[in-house]
């Protein structure tokens, strides 16, 4: 049996408490948010609030759902996030496939160049983007917001897909071509089915990013808020309970999507083209 050195042992022993502390650090704010949304004022507006819920209530949820104000922002966020993901996939997949088949010395610079747009913070370019979109009558439209989200989503999804497509042997494509498939058919019938896991990962990240996106939504929305914008409103103007309930509703799809597709979240898919 290999003898483990002291450093390795210490690392293993320290890993669990560190992971536990990190888990608490990430989870406790979420638990507090959910707790506030389900608690009566007696549990919250006190000098020493209890850790558990003593006066549970669904009043805050009932109030928000009965008011009906959440339906439209929720729907808009859902449409925009899903539209961004589908469109990003349709645009990025063929491009990522081509990049993945480039000679190695070209592949990395081309991939890095995709990220040049990501070097500019959204806050810095959102105004310029909004000016053009307003000129093109895209204020308050789902298409306008989807296109704005693609600015950030495309490089990222392309990066993940390049890494995914790279793992598929070229010989498989050649065999398919030998059987009579064209380039697009190879992509559709051979590459994509084999890379479903990587595609799922790219879709998760794109969807979540678009769902939570705030800056472009702020500039390109006037009468039709997205859910993050609506939550922002309640954080500033609403009661603590409304803010907590809206925040919880905003977070729920994130949990659902991540929980459902988490089996695809393997580190290999996230290294992109930076391999070997």
């Amino acid at each position: 049996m290999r003898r483990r050195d002291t450093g390795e042992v210490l690392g293993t022993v320290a890993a669990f408490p560190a992971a536990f502390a990190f888990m608490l650090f990430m989870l406790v704010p979420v638990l507090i948010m959910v707790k506030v949304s389900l608690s009566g004022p007696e549990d919250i507006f006190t000098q020493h609030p209890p850790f558990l819920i003593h006066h549970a209530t669904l009043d805050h949820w009932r109030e928000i759902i009965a008011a009906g104000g959440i339906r439209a922002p929720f729907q808009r966020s859902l449409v925009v996030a899903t539209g961004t993901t589908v469109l990003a996939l349709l645009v990025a997949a063929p491009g990522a496939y081509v990049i993945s088949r480039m000679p190695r010395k070209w592949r990395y610079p081309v991939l890095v160049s995709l990220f040049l747009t990501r070097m500019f913070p959204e806050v810095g370019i959102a105004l310029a983007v909004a000016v053009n979109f307003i000129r093109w009558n895209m204020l308050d439209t789902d298409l306008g917001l989807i296109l704005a989200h693609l600015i950030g989503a495309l490089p990222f999804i392309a990066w993940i897909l390049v890494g995914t497509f790279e793992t598929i042997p070229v010989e498989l494509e050649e065999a398919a071509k030998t059987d009579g498939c064209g380039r697009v058919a190879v992509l559709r019938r051979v590459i994509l089915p084999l890379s479903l896991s990587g595609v799922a990962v790219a879709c998760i990240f794109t969807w979540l990013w678009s769902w939570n996106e705030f800056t472009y939504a702020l500039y390109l929305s006037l009468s039709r808020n997205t859910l993050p914008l609506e939550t922002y409103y309640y954080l500033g103007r609403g009661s603590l309970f409304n803010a907590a309930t809206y925040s919880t509703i905003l977070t729920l799809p994130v949990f659902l999507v991540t929980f459902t597709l988490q089996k695809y979240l393997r580190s290999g898919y996230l290294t992109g083209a930076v391999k070997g």
Partner: protein
Amino acid sequence: MKRSGLVFLTIFLLLAVLGGILPVLGAQKKLTVLMALGEDEWKVMRAAILPPFEKEYGCRVEAYQVESSDAIRKLEAMAAAKKMEVDLITQDNMLLAQLVEKGLVEDLSEYRELIPETILKSLLPVGEFRGKLYFLPYRPNVEIAYYNETKFKKYGLQPPKNWDELLVVAKTFKEKEGIGRVAIKADLSSCTTVHLFDFIRQAGGDPMKLNDAGCVRAFTFLQQLWPYCSPDSKKANWNYMNRFLATDSVYLGWNWPFGVNVIVKDGKKEEIKAYAGWAGPVKASHVLGGEVIGIPVGSPHRALAVKFAEYLLSREVQEKLVSQMGWPACRSDAYGKVEKWQQPYFAAVNAALETAEPRPNVTYWADFEKIILKAFRLSVLEGQPVKATLDAAAAELAPLKK
């Protein structure tokens, strides 16, 4: 055949012309308005304020919720795109300079006569920049002092009326509970600037000078008060102050009147009372906040927007805002009755309004705010000598004033 063809063509042309005109005739005029309101306030606006105007002018008012800071960004984008979609905004009177500097709002000097004679005089300078009127008065607002009546009674204290009493209250709470319970907004944001204006003016100083006798006196007092203040003061702003008061973390603090809804109505903390606050060694003073009306450059329905502005300033609307929203009126002849539970808080707001003074409209406001907040941090929070710190701040400000 030729004749029937001519008849047919005439009918066709008539239909085409009418088809073009009728949709235009049938189309309702639309007024797009940006406001920043709470949920209950929106209910009143949509149910009681907008419909009479819509009926009188045969138009549809599309009012959207947009915070004042966000309104600047949206107007900037629309103006740059040369496609202004907004006709009128109600804007926080502390965020006006940018709109004027960027040329986003119309000069409304020709509409001075819309301002009624009975308008609160302190509201008049707020909308003026370099002698031109860019904003019409609409809604005054002022901070009031919230206090926890139960805790004050417990230690036999009264809400402080002057600085000496304030210091005694702060020291008593610290001594009895081992932690400060009086909060000032020391989060080094614009909320702190408002507080500093209050204290400096209460000491007879001019905040824009930074190192006159009143400024030195105010900063010296704050330096004395600071060790007895609540540690929550460093996070206290217009939003968190309500939570600190509601959770009994703070027993005395100034905040805007919307806190009444958050703490008393939603939080059911009826022991949280309010009054106009304390005076300084020279006078009582509150920064005049609130909102004003502006019309963006390029507004698609400018004439209708002016009518709407006049409507919002009318006595009828101001009385509705008082009775249904609990807002103080901007004109002295507008009377309204608020709900019973709101009355003490409304009285506190009106008492505070009597000593309300607006902030000056200067183009170098952003730089000024950085300097005054830095002086506060160095002298009050870090304990550096007040006079030297303020002299340095004044020297830093001097070139900006030219």
